[in-house]
């Protein structure tokens, strides 16, 4: 199952909820304001690092760049919409708005 998250983790609990339901190995796709979760050095970073131990984490690069995020938590894959589509080819999608 692919979990997609598009809200800022500083504002909403959606990332947290998705991680509660994701099983080990499930990929996580961050896009829109969800990409703020990949900024390094924030209070969310520890949760992100924990998530990375269990899940491949992807973030849409266009969203990351648009927000001026230059320091990215190590291990996150920056990718484009073609990569997003590729993940959807392989997984059922669970969106967490």
């Amino acid at each position, binding site marked *: *199952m692919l979990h997609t998250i598009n809200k800022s983790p500083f504002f909403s*609990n959606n990332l947290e*909820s998705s991680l*509660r*339901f*994701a*099983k080990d190995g499930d990929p996580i796709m961050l896009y829109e304001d969800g990409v703020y979760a990949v900024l390094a050095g924030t209070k969310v970073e520890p949760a992100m690092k924990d998530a990375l131990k269990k899940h491949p984490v992807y973030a849409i690069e266009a969203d990351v760049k648009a927000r001026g995020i230059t320091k990215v938590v190590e291990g996150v894959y920056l990718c484009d919409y073609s990569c997003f589509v590729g993940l959807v080819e392989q997984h*059922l*999608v*669970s*969106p*967490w*708005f």
Partner: protein
Amino acid sequence: MAEKEKTKIMFVMRKAAHGSIYAYEGLEAILIMGAFEQEISVAFIDDGVFVLKKEQDTKSLGVKEFSKTFRTLEDYDITNIYVDRESLEQRGLSADDLIIPVKVMEAGEIAKIMEGQHVLLPF
């Protein structure tokens, strides 16, 4: 489509009632889809559990009280209704506080059922 397998569709309700229309329009979609011969289930997670809270009284608010309509899901043979235990507990609620009978389950169990679906629809 008589020879085809039924399509499994799960509604994932995570929004509270009345503050936004998602739960209500989600219910409208459930009722329509229930009328066709597919396999519909509904999971209530996070603030979605509030949608099933008993004793909702919207008279003074002036909007529709639709929680009772969930009782009709049975008529459509929609009986796979799952509620996340942790979401309930964080909100001080138990199955007795809900307007219909539900299956209270751990997140991991609900996740397994999710994985068996063809489509997940978030509301």
